């Protein structure tokens, strides 16, 4: 039995495996299948100050090895989450990471103030590709990444801040540095890559929103490369995600520099994906004589060219 626990900017996680926002709701449905208290953390469905109904359907499409989604931040609003889901989710024993989004700087500050001290960590969604007003405006340019991070951080006295980065940018490492300058305690990446899938019979995009965020096994090499670049650039911890399906995938991200990982789309393919990844991490560590999973972080060495 390896020690799988990790410390993510002061937050103790039982293991480095976190449910990715948007694929896991607030955890209740998956808890019908297994004890989600065994997970390192749960990043909640993206929360906004007010309830949001999201995009029209269809909201999802499939392409070989990946999926595209455009849910559009449907959520019951942060107050509803606090009143109905937060205590339950905390009670499971997993670390609660509230994923938050907003239209304006004031929105981000307000929602951070609302949640400060109530959750284990905030994940700032500044990169939702599916909603014009979902913070994407802040997530592209390093100047605005830094600004929204600083404003969000000003609303937080107790709870650490993770900033979720978009891959649909000129340089994700530059944006990671901007988040660090703005006061982020850690960064998570990658959010989905913007894509399109076409129904050739109708000559229209399958997804009602026309474009959607691409995720799933097929995006993993892109995500690993970006996590490596960001981990090289910043001093704060990095949480890696993008296509993680098995323990071996998670280990790639850890070696590339991630302290923890998030698992999203794989939960759709196999609802038990995360418990299996945790088990697989333990087995891999044992087999390779790794006593603490945290020893793996950043151990990649590049080939000599």
């Amino acid at each position, binding site marked *: 039995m390896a020690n799988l626990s990790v410390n993510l900017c002061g937050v103790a996680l039982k293991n480095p495996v976190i449910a990715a926002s948007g694929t896991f709701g607030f955890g209740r449905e998956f808890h019908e299948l297994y004890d989600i208290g065994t997970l390192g953390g749960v990043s909640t469905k993206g929360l906004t100050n007010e309830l949001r109904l*999201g995009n029209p*359907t269809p909201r999802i499409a499939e392409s070989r090895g990946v999926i595209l989604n455009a849910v559009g931040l449907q959520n019951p609003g942060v107050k509803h989450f606090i009143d109905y889901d937060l205590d339950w989710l905390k009670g499971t024993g997993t670390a609660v990471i509230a994923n938050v989004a907003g239209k304006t700087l004031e929105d981000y500050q307000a929602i951070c103030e609302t949640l400060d001290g109530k959750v284990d960590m905030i994940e700032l969604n500044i990169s939702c590709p599916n909603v014009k007003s979902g913070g994407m405006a802040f997530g592209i340019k390093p100047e605005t990444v830094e600004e929204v991070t600083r404003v969000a951080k000003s609303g937080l006295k107790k709870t650490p801040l993770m900033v979720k980065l978009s891959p649909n940018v000129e340089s994700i490492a530059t944006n990671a540095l901007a988040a660090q300058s703005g006061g982020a305690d850690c960064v998570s990446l990658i959010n989905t890559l913007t894509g399109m899938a076409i129904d050739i019979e109708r000559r229209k995009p399958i997804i009602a929103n026309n474009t959607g965020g691409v995720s799933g096994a097929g995006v993993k090499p892109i995500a690993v490369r970006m996590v490596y670049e960001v981990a090289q650039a910043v001093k704060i911890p990095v949480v890696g995600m993008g296509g993680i399906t098995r323990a071996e995938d998670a280990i790639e991200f850890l070696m590339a520099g991630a302290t923890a990982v998030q698992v999203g789309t794989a939960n759709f393919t196999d609802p038990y994906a995360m418990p299996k990844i945790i088990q697989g991490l333990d087995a891999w560590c044992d087999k390779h004589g790794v006593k603490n999973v945290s020893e793996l972080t950043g151990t990649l060495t590049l080939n000599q060219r």
Partner: protein
Amino acid sequence: MKEYQAVIVENKEIANGICSVTFALPVATKVRAGQFGDIAVGGTHLLRRPIAICKVEENLVTFCYQVKGEGTQRLKEMKVGEETSVLMPLGNGFFVEETEKEVALVGGGVGIFPLISVLREYAGKKTINAYMGFRNKGAVCGLEEFEKADKFVGVTDDGSYGEKMNSVQAFAADLEKGYRPDVVLSCGPLPMLKALKKLVEEKNIPCYVSLEERMGCGIGACLVCVCDLSSGAKARVCKDGPVFNVTEVEL
């Protein structure tokens, strides 16, 4: 809801483009009529395919599906003896109240299969009229199941089998003759459901429809497969549905 490692014991085409696959689960199971399963088809397909459960006998579960895209094509190609993961039963399903004695089933296309599960659960306990619409004669299937109905009317879009009309028109024709069921249960293409909604709301007959939507997780977590409720709220087709009171849902 459970995940089963299920083995295919039969997988065959039962009509043009319509297939029936039967899985053996490790244990006997029970489902409610109108519930569905989410079948992993493997390969490069990350999404499971949500498919209506047509029949359950002990540990044998039969799903019927239309071959529409790569995922259902892959399911069609899966061989007897092949094992895959099936998450089931999912969704709320149809429920007929004790007081509802006369039940009308109105189905179209692959929408007939969840209604066959209703027939299997309620035949002999209720008086059931079944109105089923098919594209053409080649698409007609499930007739041996509809023998269980007290009355069966099969129609086609082109008149190659039964009368040339859709199942809502066939049902409406009987209403004109004075037929009045206690409840209508339906599943089929959206235009059909819209026509049925208009009809039953005019006649003030209780009606429940099973909806179809592209799904993500299949268990209610991802909010991909939502529909609009008349109240202005959204409902999850996979978890809150797929069966909705027709007066409470926007089609």
